[in-house]
């Protein structure tokens, strides 16, 4: 085999592929072929690098050059300049927003500096479709170690000591869960991987499956070994075609090598994994609903107990863990519980992956030790707020979580701290909002989502959330009253207390947390009929300044509903009853004569 002089890594995550990274890959291969360099330079498609904001990403090794926002047309220049002449293509390097300097080495980028990547350890480093690359990075070593040197109880003990908690949102200790499943005797048990990632704005599970599928397969086999299950099922949403494709390849390769199947590594332990597709219902992320969906029933939750560990899939003991939780397992077994425990905070060990989204400069996927502050995540790794605007709030935990404000920025992120300040970890989605975001509308947006996703089985969630949404719509339309606000709060409490499953029990959280943190905004909407962010169209008023208006008639001509009247060269006027607040006149006016109240 030829010794490659360089490796070119091209991001093959869903985000970068949507921006033509596949074509970049093809162009690179063709160009290298034409130049006769195919034997010297290896091109590899990897999983997600996390820095999705600046995708597609192309990284050149060994000099660690990190190119951002690469287009298929840039390929020729990269090959001609960087590969052949050794000159970096400056215009494709990441520019430090603080001092406008180009940063070539990703290690020096603010985005990567504070990160510690355990679950994402191989994402953006290996080719996820090549099991050999995974093996080179320790894949299946933990399984080998457990099967040859450890008893199932010992594996569970390590998991318990590590303090790993469920990364899907609940934060339940994973080791304890495994122990429950192990203790329930049965002729058949199951291991289920919950890949039904439903939080708006969260995409870490998808990226792990796309970038390092073997880490999850290995962990499921480990879980099967320690709980006494020989069958694994991955419940994944059908909207993740790339993750499904890579999982299928990975399962096939693992079977070929004998890491899945009969008598794994001559230990006598059998384990197989199958995929089950979900139709993308949020409630199916709840483990009982997920199990029903897999059984072919309606995806509706049932009351716990019985817990899946006693009676789960086909009424057999079943252990359900989320993708990110599983991705941590092999490393914990290889490096030990003590090592893992040393990372993070006392009650939440390890790291957490967050998906940064919203009005933040560095949108993407990051992994930090538990205990990192929100400020570090948003301002240092996330690069602060877009367009120099002011930070207003961050929504953590998705539709079940709450929003946190300026005063919470120095909170050390872990499961318990976030609950204490009125939000939750959830699956790790972080949506950042700035001064232009209206908090009432934000709550309404999440309610829209829960109304859509409610399975309808219990009435508090089915009817209650609908009513909450109606109340919020009334308020954003400028028709709300103070009584509505009382009703909103009461109803929220009732829904929380009486709903059947996690979805309903947490769905009013965005309402309650915005009410407690942004009460004055609710009041403004109701009493002053004002939306300070200017987002609630119904509360906006477009007014023409008589002094500034020159009567050019541009606004009147662009108005789609003929709400603007006036003589040529005379000040114009907007009829508020007709105006639909489409903003067209505001954009058209060259004299800044139109203002928004």
């Amino acid at each position, binding site marked *: 085999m030829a010794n490659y002089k360089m490796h070119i890594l091209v991001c093959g995550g869903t985000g970068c592929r949507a921006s033509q990274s596949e074509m970049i890959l093809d162009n690179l291969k063709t160009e290298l072929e034409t130049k006769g360099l195919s034997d010297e330079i290896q091109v590899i498609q990897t999983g997600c690098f996390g820095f999705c904001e600046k995708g597609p990403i192309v990284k050149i090794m060994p000099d660690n050059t990190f190119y951002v926002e690469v287009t298929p047309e840039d390929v020729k220049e990269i090959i001609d300049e960087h590969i052949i002449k050794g000159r970096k293509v400056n215009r494709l390097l990441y520019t430090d927003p603080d001092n406008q300097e180009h940063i070539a080495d990703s290690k020096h980028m603010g985005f990567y500096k504070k990160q510690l990547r355990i679950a994402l350890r191989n994402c953006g480093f*290996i080719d996820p479709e090549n099991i050999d690359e995974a093996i080179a990075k320790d894949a299946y070593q933990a399984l080998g170690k457990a099967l040859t040197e450890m008893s199932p109880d010992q594996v569970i003990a390590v998991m318990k000591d590590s303090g790993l908690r469920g990364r899907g949102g609940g934060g339940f200790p994973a080791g304890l869960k495994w122990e429950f499943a192990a203790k329930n005797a049965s002729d058949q048990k199951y291991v289920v991987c919950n890949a039904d990632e439903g939080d708006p704005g969260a995409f870490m599970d998808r990226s792990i499956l796309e970038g390092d599928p073997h880490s999850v397969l290995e962990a499921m086999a480990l879980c099967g070994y320690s709980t006494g299950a020989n069958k694994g099922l991955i419940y994944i949403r059908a909207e993740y075609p790339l993750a499904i494709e890579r999982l299928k390849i990975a399962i096939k390769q693992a079977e070929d090598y004998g890491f899945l199947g009969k008598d794994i590594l001559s230990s006598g332990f059998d384990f197989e994994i199958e995929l089950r597709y979900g139709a993308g219902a949020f409630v199916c992320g709840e483990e009982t609903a997920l199990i029903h969906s897999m059984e072919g029933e309606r995806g509706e939750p049932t009351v716990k107990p019985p817990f899946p560990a006693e009676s789960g899939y086909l009424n057999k003991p079943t252990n359900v863990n989320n993708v990110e939780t599983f991705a941590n397992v092999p490393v914990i077994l290889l490096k030990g519980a003590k090592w893992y425990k040393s990372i993070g905070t006392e009650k939440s060990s390890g790291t957490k992956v967050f998906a940064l989204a919203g009005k933040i400069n560095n949108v993407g996927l990051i992994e930090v030790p538990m205990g990192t502050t929100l400020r570090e995540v948003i301002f240092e790794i996330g690069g602060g707020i877009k367009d120099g605007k002011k930070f207003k709030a961050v929504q953590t935990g998705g539709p079940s979580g709450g929003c946190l404000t300026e005063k919470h920025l120095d909170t050390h992120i872990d499961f318990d701290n976030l609950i204490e300040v009125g939000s939750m970890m959830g699956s790790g989605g972080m949506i950042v909002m700035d001064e232009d975001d209206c908090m009432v509308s934000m709550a309404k947006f999440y309610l829209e989502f829960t109304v859509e996703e409610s399975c309808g089985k219990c009435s508090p969630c089915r009817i209650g959330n609908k009513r909450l949404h109606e109340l919020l719509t009334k308020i954003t339309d400028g028709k709300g009253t103070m009584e509505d606000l009382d009703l909103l709060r009461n109803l929220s409490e009732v829904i929380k207390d009486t709903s059947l499953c996690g979805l309903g029990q947490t769905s009013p959280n965005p309402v309650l947390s915005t009410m407690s943190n942004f009460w004055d905004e609710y009041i403004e909407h109701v009493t002053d009929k004002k939306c300070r962010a200017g987002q609630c169209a119904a509360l906006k008023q477009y007014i023409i300044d008589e002094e500034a208006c020159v009567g050019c008639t541009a606004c009147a001509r662009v108005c789609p509903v003929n709400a603007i009247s006036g003589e040529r060269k005379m000040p114009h006027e907007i009829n508020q009853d007709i105006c639909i607040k489409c903003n067209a006149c505001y954009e058209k006016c060259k004299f800044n004569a139109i203002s928004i109240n």
Partner: protein
Amino acid sequence: MAKIKSLADLKKKQEEVRSKLNLRDKADNPESLVQIKVAMATCGIASGAKEIMEFFVDELGKRNIDAVVTQTGCMGYCYAEPTIEVQLPGQEPIVYGYVDSKKADEIIELYIKKGELVDGIIPQNYETIDNK
């Protein structure tokens, strides 16, 4: 694909495939390794820098020396091409000129392995803005 039947087999397989990722692994902390930069501008390439770079990549691999070989632009010593810069961990970089495969072999055997200086060093005759 042959089945892997034991932990020992798996370890053996890992040894076998690890070299494929060596280059990427090493790039993670080049400071702790021998770093060689080969000047690959027009002048360098015309004088055979490409062959020298290949020589280093292959030979360092064969002789089991962990090193990062990268290319760089013209260092300005066009009269002495091919030129290379060698930096041992924790030491100042040293530039060698007129590097052919014989000289390259000498550099690996004497300088990189034993730390003995070899003829052909181009002294640093400029200051960088970092020092100003």
